[in-house]
């Protein structure tokens, strides 16, 4: 077909894909140079959702900035909250309580599930599988109800605080989560039966958008996209942060690095996350959720209203120049977000506001590698490959 079209037209066509295309998942734009149906050149453009998050970081104090991290990967804000406060805490040199660590892992894994579920639904929808979208959103809704009850918000969770979390889990949280994880593998199996051996799904994703392990490392791919190429690297295993060294889980890897393997890796990761969630609930320690340092965390409301010391501590924590003040220095902290390595590089000058905050988003590097996966393929595969990468505009453009 390609040869026929070439003879027919003999010229290249430039197709502008996005930023307002339903399959671009937000404001992404790719300029495709086509020869008939095949992609000669793809040029991704970023920046449509640039909001200056890094600049804002130099003007907000350490706790205020948590609100901004919600808006980075808005499909799993709890993971961003976690990664950011972890960086600040490591810069401060404090360790949060065991219960807090477990709660954070619980929330991070649930948001990994929510993120992968949304990815699954939309990636399948892009290729025409509408029922998968409905099934995954049905499950995602249950998670969002848990998030809403825990944090008070579905999207802008802002759950973590430097030195702790906003509040402890609500009564009945454990039952809700246990009920979810006991039903979830069965629900995921439905999707497996719909997609995994589906002839159309396999034709559309197998061998599509493949990248070799060497290229993936060179392009800086991380997370499921890297593991699909066969590199068994997971920051939760390689550099266990929080209490990830106390839970058992497997790191699923693919072999071909194509869209189908990225799908399989994410599917297995969801099952692994369920396992982590169960272990966390089984071993959830008791105790306070905030570190007992009044210079870092807020006092209880009853203390703030009932005792002069509590009021002073409350006042000190929120006043500019009196709250969280990490020592002078810089620190890079990486966490395994659902999409891959989410890093925060913070330079502190010793004041209550960061001197510089740099966010290392996984999506930025994934989107960069897109031409490598598209060029030489068919134009219809663009949607399949883009969907398989799960590029989130919020963290891409920051």
């Amino acid at each position, binding site marked *: 077909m390609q040869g026929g079209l070439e003879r027919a037209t003999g010229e290249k066509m430039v197709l502008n894909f996005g930023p307002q295309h339903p399959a671009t998942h937000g404001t992404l734009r790719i300029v495709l140079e086509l020869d008939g149906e095949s992609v000669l050149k793809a040029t991704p453009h*970023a*920046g449509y959702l*640039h909001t*200056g998050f*890094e*600049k*804002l970081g*130099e*003007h907000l104090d350490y706790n205020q900035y948590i609100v901004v991290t919600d808006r980075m990967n808005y499909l799993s804000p709890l993971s961003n909250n976690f990664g950011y406060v972890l960086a600040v805490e*490591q*810069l401060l040199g404090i360790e949060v309580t065991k219960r807090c660590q477990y709660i954070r892992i619980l929330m991070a894994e649930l948001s990994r599930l929510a993120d992968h579920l949304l990815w699954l639904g939309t990636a399948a929808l892009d290729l025409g599988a509408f029922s998968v979208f409905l099934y995954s959103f049905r499950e995602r809704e249950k998670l969002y109800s848990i998030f809403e009850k825990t944090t008070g918000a579905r999207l802008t969770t802002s759950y973590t605080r430097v030195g702790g979390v906003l509040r402890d889990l609500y009564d009945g949280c454990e039952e809700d989560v246990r009920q979810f994880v006991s039903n979830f593998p069965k629900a995921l199996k439905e999707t497996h039966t719909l997609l995994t051996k589906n002839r159309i799904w396999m034709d559309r994703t197998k061998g599509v958008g493949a990248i070799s392990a060497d*290229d993936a*490392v*060179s*392009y*800086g791919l991380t997370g499921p996209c890297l593991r699909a190429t066969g*590199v068994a*690297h997971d920051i939760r295993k*390689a*550099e266990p942060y929080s209490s990830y060294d106390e839970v058992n889980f497997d790191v699923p890897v693919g072999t071909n690095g194509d869209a189908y393997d990225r799908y399989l890796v994410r599917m297995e990761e969801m099952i692994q996350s369920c396992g982590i969630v169960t272990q966390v609930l089984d071993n959830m320690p008791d105790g306070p959720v905030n570190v007992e340092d009044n210079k870092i965390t807020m006092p209880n409301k009853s203390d703030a209203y009932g005792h002069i010391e509590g009021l002073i501590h409350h006042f000190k924590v929120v006043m500019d120049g009196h709250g969280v003040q990490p020592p*002078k*220095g*810089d*620190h*890079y902290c*990486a966490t395994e977000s659902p999409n891959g*390595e989410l*890093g925060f*590089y913070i*330079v502190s*000058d010793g004041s209550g506001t960061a*001197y*510089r905050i*740099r966010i*290392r988003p996984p999506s*930025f*590097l994934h*989107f*960069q*590698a897109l031409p*490598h996966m598209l060029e030489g393929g068919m134009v219809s595969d663009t949607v399949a490959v883009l969907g398989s990468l799960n590029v989130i505009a919020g963290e891409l*453009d*920051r």
Partner: protein
Amino acid sequence: MSEENQVEEQPKPLVLEKLEANYADARLAQDASRGTVIIVIRKERAYAVLEYLKTDPELAYTFLVDVTAVDNSQMESELMQFDYARFMVVYQLYSYQGQCRLRVKVPVHENDLNIPSVTGLWKGANWLERETYDMFGINFEGHPDLRRILMPDDFEGHPLRKDYPLRGRGERERFNFDKQNA
């Protein structure tokens, strides 16, 4: 950033030992904080050192995690330490083999914003360097496509520099509607 503390505490990391043996002339300072080795190197030798770090079979820092910069113009202590170089280009490296991180910093003076590009070593460096150029105006020599990436092409200034105001620099006043429509 004192070398004395480093030596006393624990055996020297392999990367420091090897760099000392091979690139003693490139090093300006070194440090190890919170489990990460930090080295500050001379700009002229930056490419050679980074290439060595990537290709040496024992070190194998094959993953370029991040490239960014810090404008130190309001950080007097940093300025003084590195001969009043305004910018510090920061490379975060990771070795899958050794499972360790490394932070390489290169001071860049405001009157000479050129620094060799590492796009030839890591494909992923392309956009990271473009963003650093966009936000700080660092000129990566040998970069195949050094354009703005997050800001519009006709944007003036580099927003993450410390002298750039938070609320922008008068775009609204300068925006000429008649000219745009003409």
